[in-house]
């Protein structure tokens, strides 16, 4: 027996306070573009408490200037959540989150070129019994593809306002705003029959949700339907759990159906698609048979067995070239700016010579400078990631790389984050949000800092210079050692990913169910906005931590004070940092490192390249710009107390190995803390990386000694 759906057809009164709209839609349907177009720069970006899902709220203004609140919910294919993003969307719509008001009205955006799959989410949302406005986006693209999508037919079938729109160029926005400020938004008159085998279960669950979970009747019905397809879906922090009675009823039905062999979830999905198929057939007509689209033609090359690799290689080379060449100029300006600011404070600010001035110049200015000097690289990286995402190439890169990533138990989506980490682990780790599977995401975050980032380059270059006799290092040696270090880090990352996926973060076999969206011209405004948001997060999170750490490191190096007239070298030697170096020496002596190198290791926590400047102070050899010759000579002249040289080629090599693996970057720790929402993972990361670094350095140094190096 089919239970007729019971959606009251009525009219919802306009709320007296500022109306709250939720904006929902599938990924790749132009949702962010519409959100940016509706709200302009009036957006607040944060995080949902307890989960690393971005929370975006903006204010739009109606044609009469009335404010309308818009919550941009994460893109979702279904309310039966498979990722934390989708779980947040589901929970906000069902009013399960105490930290977000349940939206009064829902703005559903769909891609007109891909109506059927997009309507699946709409169909689930209509069950919620809230007023819904449907935005038919990309009408121009649909028309170009020979699709005639009739908004009027859809409006009649669904019984809700349907607004055709082109979010990219603002077409349809006025009509949409007019609809949004309507006082009398109709509720959907669309009714569908719940399949007979599961109808009694839906009715019983709905009654229990109303009685035991205090849900309004329509939400209760929607939630009952959802529970049947949502059995083992993602739960996230901040969501109200179900009552015991409802859970009991649900499990009772599931047991019964399993015994009978009823495919309840499948039945439900099928019946939704039956309805959608009928609606789509009514609303869409295909004008003639069209050949392959431009997107199909690009893909024939971009995912070609030979050209595909070459294009991927070219895109990645371009990315790295721009990071290392384009970023050089702004980085130079920033470094000069920081230096002149520091000089000004020292000479012309009128501050007396002393600790306060040193704290400002050597602690605060140097510390903040050390952070923002990386900003150009990070901005370029975020810009490229945004570009790859908005054009659709990101999905192709994941498609091509999936097979290789699957060898270590990850999927293709981990590729771009890991690759970005060669420039800097921070944007790499922030880019892991596109990985739906939580365990895969965590594994990617854990191994990303093993990819040799650009801050390690100065350390490698100094050590290579000290490694090879003679003033000029042969290019082949330089490149060979460099490649070896990058390879070690890469193999290390994949090795640990393999290990973690088998032990610590064992999960269901990974899947790669991913949409390959059509190629599109990038929305430069959206990409730029996204880039600035990310950079701001980096500055706020890493900047504050780095500033604190820099001041602490300054203090450790400046106190206690050496007697009048001591050189900076003597001052550092007897400071807290020097003493810490001495205290560390027993632990690092088996690696061939003395207390002076120990100071360098400690100071590297601010940023790895600080090692070079610290060595400059320790050995009293200022190195100017890229010329490390004086420092190199000072290093080579340094001896242990018993007269053995300190920086033997073996020690230089061991030190490089240590830098490949050790976790020595406070900014990364701060970002991992933010992205995993706990201290557990960053602490584990420090332990496993630094432990590996120590063990490998020990093996290399001791084996090298035994072999007579």
């Amino acid at each position, binding site marked *: 027996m089919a239970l007729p759906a019971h959606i009251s057809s009525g009219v919802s009164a306009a709320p007296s306070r500022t109306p709250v709209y939720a904006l929902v839609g599938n990924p790749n349907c132009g949702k962010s573009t519409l959100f940016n177009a509706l709200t302009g720069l009036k957006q607040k970006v944060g995080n949902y408490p307890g989960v690393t899902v971005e929370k975006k709220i903006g204010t739009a203004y109606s044609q009469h200037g009335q404010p309308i609140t818009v919550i941009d919910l994460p893109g979702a294919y279904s309310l039966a959540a498979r990722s934390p993003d989708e779980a947040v969307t589901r929970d906000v719509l069902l009013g399960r989150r105490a930290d977000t008001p349940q939206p009064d009205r829902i703005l559903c955006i769909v891609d007109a070129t891909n109506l*059927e799959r997009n309507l699946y989410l709409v169909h689930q949302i209509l069950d919620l019994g809230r007023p819904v406005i449907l935005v038919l986006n990309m009408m121009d693209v649909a028309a170009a593809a020979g699709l005639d999508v009739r908004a009027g037919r859809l409006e009649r079938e669904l019984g809700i306002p349907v607004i055709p729109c082109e979010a990219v160029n603002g077409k349809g926005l006025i009509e949409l705003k007019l609809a949004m400020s309507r006082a009398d938004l109709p509720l959907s008159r669309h009714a569908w029959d719940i399949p007979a085998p599961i109808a009694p279960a839906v009715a019983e669950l709905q009654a229990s949700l109303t009685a035991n979970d205090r849900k309004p009747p329509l939400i209760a019905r929607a939630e009952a339907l959802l529970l049947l397809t949502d059995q083992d879906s993602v739960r996230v922090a901040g969501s109200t759990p179900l009552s015991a009675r409802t859970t009991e009823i649900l499990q009772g039905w599931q047991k019964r159906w399993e015994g009978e062999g009823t495919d309840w979830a499948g039945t439900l*999905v099928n019946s939704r698609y039956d309805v959608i198929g009928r609606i789509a057939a009514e609303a869409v007509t295909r004008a003639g048979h069209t050949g392959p689209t431009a997107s199909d033609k690009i893909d024939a090359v971009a995912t070609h067995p030979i050209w595909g690799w070459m294009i991927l290689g070219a895109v990645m080379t371009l990315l790295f070239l721009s990071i290392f060449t384009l970023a050089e100029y702004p980085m130079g300006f920033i470094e000069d700016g920081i230096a002149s600011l520091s000089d000004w404070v020292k000479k012309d600010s009128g501050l007396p010579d002393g600790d306060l001035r040193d704290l400002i110049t050597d602690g605060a200015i140097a510390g903040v400078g050390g952070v923002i000097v990386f900003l150009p690289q990070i901005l370029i990286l975020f810009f490229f990631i945004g570009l790859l995402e908005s054009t659709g190439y990101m999905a192709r890169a994941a498609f091509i790389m999936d097979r290789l990533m699957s060898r270590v138990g990850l999927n*293709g989506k981990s590729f771009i984050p890991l690759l970005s980490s060669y420039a800097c682990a921070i944007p790499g780790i922030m880019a892991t949000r596109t990985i739906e599977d939580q365990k895969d995401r965590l594994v990617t975050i854990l191994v990303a800092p093993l990819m040799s980032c650009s801050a390690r380059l100065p350390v490698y270059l100094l050590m290579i210079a000290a490694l090879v006799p003679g003033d000029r290092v042969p290019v082949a040696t330089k490149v060979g050692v460099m490649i070896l270090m990058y390879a070690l880090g890469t193999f290390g990352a994949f090795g640990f990913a393999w290990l973690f996926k088998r032990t610590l973060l064992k999960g269901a*076999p990974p899947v790669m169910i991913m949409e*390959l969206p059509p190629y599109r011209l990038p929305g430069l405004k959206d990409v730029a906005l996204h880039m600035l948001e990310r950079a701001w997060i980096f500055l706020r999170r890493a900047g504050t931590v780095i500033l604190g750490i820099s001041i602490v490191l300054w203090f450790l190096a400046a106190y206690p004070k050496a007697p009048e007239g001591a050189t900076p070298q003597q001052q550092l030697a007897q400071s807290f940092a020097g003493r810490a170096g001495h205290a560390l020496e027993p632990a690092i002596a088996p690696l061939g490192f003395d207390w002076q190198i120990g100071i360098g290791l400690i100071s590297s926590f601010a940023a790895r390249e600080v090692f070079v400047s610290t060595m400059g102070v320790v050995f009293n050899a200022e190195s100017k710009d890229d010329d490390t010759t004086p420092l190199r000579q000072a290093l080579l002249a340094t001896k242990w107390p018993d007269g053995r040289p300190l920086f033997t080629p073996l020690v230089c090599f061991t030190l490089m190995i240590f830098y490949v693996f050790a976790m020595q970057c406070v900014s990364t720790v701060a970002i991992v803390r933010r992205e995993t929402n706990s201290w557990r993972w960053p602490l584990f990361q420090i332990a496993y990386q630094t432990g590996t670094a120590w063990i490998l350095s020990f093996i290399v140094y001791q084996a090298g000694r035994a072999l007579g190096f």
Partner: protein
Amino acid sequence: MKLSELAIGATAVVREFPKAGAAFLRLREMGLVAGTRVTLIRTAPLGDPLEIKVRGYHLTLRKSEAEHVLVDPAA
């Protein structure tokens, strides 16, 4: 036959689907249900995953899932 055995460029109609498993539920929700027409567009350069066209859009899935989806060749 299995979806994974489809020739490149060939079209088939989905016949049967495993009941259990989150991956298969998601495939259904992405529009791949019994009776849906699918076309195998290509495999990735290393042979896996597959790219299929379903309901007018392109979707990837691994062979390990495609092996469990039974299809009938379409006329």
